[in-house]
């Protein structure tokens, strides 16, 4: 094989590369999960302090904890046969959707509290 042909060959990916990318994104999704767990612990106390404990949106808090892991798993599944850059792109989109859902959950929790307070 000539050197010129060798230079034009696509760079081979190692199986470990995909694991490294997945691990880096797992850290980001893990941070989202930690934040959701902190909300699960602290938001009920805020509702309790405002005397609207019955309005605590448990479904929203539990969904917030579960969703980052579900999105991470879904992104890994969608990108399972893709090359590394495409796989990373899919994981980035899933991370963005996780951030969007986190903001949506925040908005819904705020509205539920305002409604419960009669505002």
């Amino acid at each position, binding site marked *: 094989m000539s050197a010129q042909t060798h230079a034009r060959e696509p760079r081979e990916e190692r199986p470990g590369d995909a694991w490294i990318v997945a691990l880096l994104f797992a850290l980001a999704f893990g941070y989202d999960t930690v934040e959701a767990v902190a909300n699960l612990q602290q938001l009920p106390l805020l509702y309790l302090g405002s005397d609207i404990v019955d309005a605590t949106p448990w479904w929203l808090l539990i969904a917030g904890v579960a969703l980052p892991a579900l999105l991470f798993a879904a992104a890994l599944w969608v990108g399972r046969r*893709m090359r590394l850059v*495409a796989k990373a*792109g*899919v994981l980035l989109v899933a991370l963005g*959707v996780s951030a969007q859902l986190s903001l949506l959950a925040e908005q819904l929790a705020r509205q539920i509290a305002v409604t419960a307070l009669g505002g």
Partner: protein
Amino acid sequence: MSRDEDALRWEGDDDLDRLSVVDDEDESGSGESDGPDAPAPVREARPRGPLGWLMLALGLAATAGWIMIIVANPVQQPSLVGLAMYQLGELLAVLTPLTWWFVVDRVAPLARRAPWWLAGLVVTAPWPLVAGLIA
């Protein structure tokens, strides 16, 4: 160059960005292209059509909606790191409609681009804005 040194260089990394559709065809091909004299892989033409441009316009509209949400969203974080991470999340949220469109444009098989774009339109819509208007 050893494989470890290879990881420290950029040369040739463009080839890693080849489309998955082309890869699938390569894997299921007759093997004619496996020889050392085979031509270099050619990027497939991926015409977007009116639907692609419409989806891009709707993605831009969704991005504008998310920017409105972020501007109106009060941020309270106990630490500087928490604030930085929160704002990074906001930035990701704003960029996601266009990122979804771009990733589908570059990665999805041509026949499946339309459903993926439509799914992105629903998933990445500025729902907090909608929820705020309904409430």
